[in-house]
């Protein structure tokens, strides 16, 4: 199975800053796999995500998407191949839910009938059929996140990037959306600081600590890890019970 994304010794220093946010990261994402990037605030996980869709470029090393360095990709074409979901969903407030969802297929030049059919399909997938003509402001937080996920999936992207997509949700809605996400079986990088979410959703969990990749393992092995940062996260799990 070919790697959809490959980080090759990637480091990143933000412009005008001295400290590296990400150091020498090497990591692959295989087709059909969800890799969770776990870490505290400032560990570099969001930066890693933005290096994949070309919102940022590595200071050194290379990020390959479908075998091609992000620097060689046409920046617009690269972004249109990748679905991206952020915490606040980033829905366009002046577009209805269905127009928001229809946007990526439209940007990809789909035919109007195909866009229409796909939008209806996506609305059904995330259970928002009755909210097609509402505006984002008229939705609950959970519904907005659903719409955000539907929009990211709409153009059938080869790859999904999710940056704490369920972070702002109440625990009940959160669990429901996590279960739905598992059913999607997409190739995805999923960023979270929640160890429970990481173990539940990741085929592998990559733990970032102050810009370094501390541990990368499947959930079962991760729980046996002796790395101090991994222990710190696992302790959280035990304290919750």
């Amino acid at each position, binding site marked *: 199975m070919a790697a959809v994304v490959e980080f090759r010794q990637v480091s990143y220093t933000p412009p005008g800053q001295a400290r590296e946010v990400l150091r020498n990261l090497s990591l692959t994402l295989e087709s059909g796999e969800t890799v969770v990037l776990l870490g505290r605030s400032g560990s570099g996980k969001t930066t890693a995500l933005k290096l994949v869709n070309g*919102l940022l470029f590595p200071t050194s090393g290379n990020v390959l998407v479908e075998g091609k360095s992000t620097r060689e990709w046409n920046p617009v074409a*690269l*972004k249109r191949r990748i679905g991206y979901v952020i915490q606040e969903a980033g829905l366009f407030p002046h577009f209805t839910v269905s127009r928001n969802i229809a946007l990526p297929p439209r*940007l990809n030049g789909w035919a109007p009938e195909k866009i229409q059919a796909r939008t209806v399909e996506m609305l059904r997938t995330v259970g928002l059929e009755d909210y097609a003509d509402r505006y984002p402001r008229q939705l609950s937080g959970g519904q907005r996140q659903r719409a955000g996920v539907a929009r990211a999936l709409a153009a059938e992207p080869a790859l999904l990037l999710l940056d704490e997509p369920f972070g702002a949700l109440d625990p009940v809605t959160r669990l429901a959306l996590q279960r739905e996400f598992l059913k999607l079986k997409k190739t995805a990088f999923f960023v979270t600081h929640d160890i429970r979410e990481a173990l539940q959703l990741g085929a592998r969990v990559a733990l970032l600590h102050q810009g370094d990749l501390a541990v990368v393992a499947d959930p079962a092995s991760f729980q046996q890890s002796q790395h101090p940062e991994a222990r710190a996260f696992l302790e959280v799990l035990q304290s919750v019970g």
Partner: protein
Amino acid sequence: MWADLAREALSLTLEHLFLVSVSVLLAALIAIPAAISLARHERLRRPIVGIVNILQTIPSLALFGFLIPLPVLGGIGKRTAIIALVLYALLPILRNTLVGITGIDAAVRESAVAMGMTPMQILREVELPLAAPSIFAGLRVATVTTIGTAAIAAAIGAGGLGVFIFRGIASVDNAQILAGAVPAALMAIAADEGFSWIERKLSPP
């Protein structure tokens, strides 16, 4: 005599309307593109908004006076008046457009870029629609103040309702002053209401 006054009132009102619409239109054609580019160049923002701000603080009668002796731009008449009115109308339009664009939620902007929208698509489909209520608020303020300032333009021979007002003051004739002031006030109220209506229509629910 009343028929004459009414006829003159109508023609001066139209003249006033002409001065205001041409000035606001020109100001918008300068200020909106300028604000769009300033939204992308943070370093230029303060100095340019500063200059436009200073323009606004010059008393209008003084600005008209300054412009008269200038070659090409100056002289007596409508052209000079329109130049001054445009300079005054710049600030509210520039500032409101800038606030409208820079005030867009960072998450919305990031997701537009991340979806692979081109800068032109972002301008057309995200920035301008979301900034539209604010842009129209700027046009409203510019129009209402221009209606007032244009009355002073009669002092340099630009015509408009100011003609009545200055004549009324000179001849201590309240009827003449009112014949200038009332249509100007009604025009300002109508502009205020009209633009407010557009603003509301353009705001997302």
